[in-house]
Each structure stands twice: as structure tokens, then as C-alpha cells.
């Protein structure tokens, strides 16, 4: 119990500050190790991010180099496979392992940043609607309803028809079609947070609305945002696969797991390895992200994070 310690000098106080800073730095790994699934999730995500960053040096082959002599080679451990292509080759004789390694990059980029884009729009609109209520809320929510009713595939098709598909465009487009969910969730959250007394307290001090939204509302919705967004990263990776199915995904020579799945789907019956390995990559990554998200939810929940 530190209640009775009287520290009179500022230096002492600063000392305490430094200590508490340090302890908060150590708190995260500690909390992480306490949760098994959290640790697993973190490890998976860490590995995936690592692979994405160092993809170029990790890939054993040039992933775009097609080798017409080595088309559709099975994985190394099967008859006809060679150790040169650990996971086999695709229909243009490209090394699947290298493609998966390189594909990590795009899939993660698209997965994460489109969620960020959606999150920014959704949070902004959700906070405004929830905080001000009344007419503003009504107008914004009608817009949200409208967007909900317009099939997202329409947006994606049209935008990709207008702009040349690139990672940037894809991120923006997916983000732009997914913001609605966030707006709804955030608005609901804001409606309850703005009734909490600390918001009233801040108002009673004379704080301006903008500041209240920024300092009081926003930090308190961020944790539930993190939880839905980790799930959403997963959905986005898969959405990219579906877009590839429609011919709207990432363009070669850019490689994505979704694109690999789509290209390989024609070979499902005959050359299973074309889709199985990118499929496993997606599943494992998604699993990792979901585990990490679940853990984050627990940690960010003040009830579990606890009164020490």
C-alpha cells in the first residue's frame, strides 16, 4: 500500500513516474504470456509479419519466373516432386512456396490497411452520429442504411472499372465498402459512452465537443474497434480472394493469397496443391489474428486488466 508514502520533492514523483512507465512496458509481454491462445496468436502474426517484411530474401525462387518445363510439379514429398520446389509449382511452373511468401505482403497490406480505411471512416461517422444525435444522427444513419443496402460488390466493380486496379485502389475500395459496420458499432458504443459520467464531467468543465469526442469518446471505443477489426482483417483477406474470382483482385505480377486460390481453383480436382497451401496460409494467419484479437479484447477490458 503506497497510500502512506509521502513524497515531497518533484524528483521523487518523477522517479515514480519513470517506474510506472517501465512497469507498463513490461506489462504487455507478461499479459501475453499469461494467455496461451494469445501467445500462439502473437507468434503466428509475428511470423507472418516477419515473412512479409523479409519476403524477398526468404523466397527460394523468383515467384514470377515461369518455367514451362516444370509446370504443375507436385510437392517435394510426392511422386514426381523435386526438392527444388518444396510445395510444388503452379500451372505456369512458378514455385508455390515463393509465391506464398511473397503473397504474404499483399494479403497483409490489403487486410490491414483496408480495415484502417474502413475504421477511420466508420469511427468518424459513428462518433458524430452517436454524439450529436438528433438530426445529424438521423441523416448519417440514413446514409449508413443506404450503403448497407447497396451491395458492396457494386462499389467494388464500379470503382475498379473506373480506376486501374492496384493495391492502393483495392485498399481504398474495400475500406470504403466496409465502413458501414464500424459506423454502426461505433455509434452504438458512443450512445452508451456519452451517457457515462466522465463525459458529463468534461462537459461540466466547459470542454468543447470536438475535444470531448477526441479525448473521451474515441479512446473508449478503440478497444471494441480493435476486436471487430481483427476479425475484419480476416474477412478482408478472404474478400480479396473473392474479388480475384471476379477478376478484380490484385494484378500480376503482384501476388496475393486470394489470387493464388482463384488461379488454382481450376486445378482443384487434378492438382490440389495449387490451392491447398495458400488456403492453409490464410487459415493459419486468420486464426492467429483472431486469437490475438480475442486476447486484446481481454486485455483492453478494464475488468480483466484489473485493479492490479
Amino acid at each position: 500500500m503506497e497510500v502512506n508514502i509521502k513524497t515531497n520533492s518533484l524528483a521523487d514523483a518523477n522517479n515514480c513516474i519513470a517506474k510506472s512507465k517501465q512497469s507498463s512496458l513490461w506489462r504487455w509481454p507478461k499479459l501475453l504470456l499469461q494467455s496461451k491462445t494469445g501467445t500462439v496468436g502473437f507468434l503466428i502474426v509475428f511470423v507472418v509479419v516477419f515473412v512479409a517484411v523479409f519476403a524477398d530474401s526468404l523466397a527460394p525462387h523468383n515467384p514470377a519466373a515461369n518455367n514451362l518445363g516444370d509446370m504443375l510439379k507436385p510437392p517435394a514429398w510426392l511422386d514426381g516432386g523435386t526438392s527444388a520446389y518444396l510445395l510444388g509449382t503452379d500451372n505456369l511452373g512458378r514455385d508455390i512456396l515463393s509465391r506464398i511468401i511473397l503473397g504474404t505482403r499483399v494479403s497483409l497490406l490489403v487486410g490491414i490497411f483496408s480495415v484502417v480505411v474502413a475504421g477511420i471512416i466508420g469511427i468518424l461517422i459513428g462518433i458524430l452520429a452517436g454524439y450529436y444525435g438528433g438530426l445529424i444522427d438521423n441523416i448519417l444513419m440514413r446514409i449508413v442504411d443506404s450503403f448497407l443496402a447497396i451491395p458492396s460488390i457494386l462499389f467494388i466493380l464500379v470503382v475498379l472499372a473506373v480506376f486501374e486496379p492496384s493495391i492502393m485502389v483495392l485498399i481504398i475500395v474495400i475500406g470504403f465498402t466496409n465502413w458501414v459496420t464500424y459506423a454502426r458499432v461505433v455509434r452504438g458504443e458512443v450512445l452508451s459512452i456519452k451517457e457515462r459520467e466522465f463525459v458529463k464531467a468534461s462537459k461540466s468543465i466547459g470542454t468543447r465537443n470536438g475535444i470531448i469526442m477526441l479525448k473521451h469518446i474515441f479512446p473508449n471505443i478503440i478497444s471494441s474497434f480493435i476486436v471487430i477489426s481483427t476479425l475484419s482483417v480476416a474477412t478482408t483477406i478472404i474478400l480479396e480472394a473473392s474479388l480475384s474470382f471476379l477478376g478484380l483482385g490484385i494484378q500480376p505480377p503482384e501476388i496475393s493469397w486470394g489470387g493464388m486460390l482463384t488461379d488454382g481453383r481450376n486445378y482443384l480436382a487434378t492438382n490440389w496443391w495449387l490451392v491447398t497451401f495458400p488456403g492453409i496460409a490464410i487459415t493459419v494467419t486468420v486464426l492467429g489474428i483472431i486469437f490475438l484479437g480475442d486476447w486484446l479484447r481481454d486485455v483492453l477490458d478494464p475488468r480483466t486488466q484489473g485493479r492490479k
Partner: protein
Amino acid sequence: MKKYLIRRLLQLIPVLFIITFVVFVLVYLAGDPVSLMLPEDASEEDREALREALGLNEPFLYQYFHFLGDLISGDFGTSFRYSQEALPLVLERLPATFELAAASMLVAIVLAIPLGIFSARKRNSFVDLFITGGSVLGKAMPNFWLGIMLILMLAVNYQIFPVSGRGTFVHLVLPAITLGTGVAAEMTRLIRSSMLEILHQDYIRTAKSKGVSDTLVIFKHAFRNSLIPVVTITSLQISHLVSGALITETVFSWPGLGQLLVQAVNGRDMAVVQAAVFVIAILVIVINLITDLVYRLLDPRINYS
């Protein structure tokens, strides 16, 4: 209650207005339908002539208000692609779309409820982990992949179900599983977490203190409460099922709205896109309304005012 319904339905008007405008802008931006209607080797004069004939030379706003005027009198215009009235084209798809959506929802519910409850009850056990893994897999499998797999296994290899097409009940099974799995995966997780939360509620403790058995606590006291958040998500999911079944429809050559819509967008077929989005919008809003009512049915605390 009646007033509530009327108010909700009146809200449709601004929403539909926004939708027509957004869709019009989108399709307008998407490009020239004419170039898609003529063969690859048609000349520029041919295209210009067609444009003229279709009234596509007018300025944007003129075209929009012209469209809006027609719309108010119930006319969505004529499909470029099918040279037919757009609305009937859309409406004739509804039965197939509904059929698939309803069946997939059923699959999802039948899978998700027991799994969700089970994994909540056995929280952190091996079974829970297994179900979580399964639902992640369910989410991570793209529809086309699952659909083709199912066809290969159950329709081609074992010939239990027909490969594709729409007709009898058995035709519905594989597409419904394909589409329902993803929904089930999400629902399972949702039921699990909402169940976990409910199980910590005071009234569960009350029930236990009355001597109610564990099974009854789960299925009577907890389940209905845990459905309340599930219903909201389900309504969102149904909206997706109505408009977003495209890939499953393509794989199983199921003549639903999704295929129509994508083809219409690809062909810049303004009238059909508008009609389809309009119909989907009304459906989505009506579905939302229905879920709201169900919500109210499940939760007596909400009143209609």
C-alpha cells in the same frame, strides 16, 4: 406499433432516394455501356449512333432526373442487355434468391446454435478450441473453393447431390451449405461470446439458486437472452445473403440476383442495376424491420414507441 411501422417505412423514402443517386453516379462513372454492347470491331460511328439512339448523349443531371421521373411512375427503364423492362427481370430472380438465402440461413442456424452453445459451455476446453478452429476455417474458406470442393466430393465422386442448377430440394443442399458455412462460422463465435456473457449474468445465478439444472439453465434461461445480439447480426447476414451470393450462384449456376447484378454492372446496364439495387434495398430494409420486430419479440424490455 402501427405508427412505429409507418415511421420505419417512411424512412425508406430518403434511403431509396440516396440509393438511386449513388447508384446512378456509380454506373455513370463506370463507363460507356455502348462499347460493351457492340462487337470488338465495331467502329466509332456505330457506337456514336447507338449512344444517340439510347439517349446516352444527354448531360448527367438530365439523364438522372429523366430516370427519376420515370421511376416515380414505376418505370425503371429498359435493360440494354436484355432489351426488356428491368423490374420484371429482377423480380423473376427473387424466388431463387430467397430460396437460397433461407436455406443457407437454416444451415447456419442448425450448425451454429449447438456448436456455439457447446463451445461456450466447455469454454477453453479442447472442444472449444476445436470449434473455434473450425469456425475460423469456415470463415477462411472462400465460397468458390468450398463450393467446388463440395461438387467434386458429393456430386461428382459420390453423386449424392446434383452438380448444379435449381429445381428440386436436393439441388438446394450444396449451395446452401456453401453459403451457410461462412455465416455459421460467424454465428457460432457470436453465440459463444454472447452465451459466455449471459452465463455471468445475475439472473443465471438466480436460476441456479432455485435449483434449476445446468441444461435447463443453458437452454431455457441463457439461450433466449443470448439470441438477442445474434438476431441483429443475423439481419446483417441475411442482407449479405440476398445480394452477396454471387460466387455461390456462379459456381452452382443458380439463377439468383447476385449473378444478374454483376452481369448488369459489368454491362453497365443502368436500368437493371438500379432495379436490382432498389429491390435489394427494400428487401434489406424490410428484413431489418422484421429483425427489429423479432428482437422485440425476444426482448420484452423494448417497446414500440
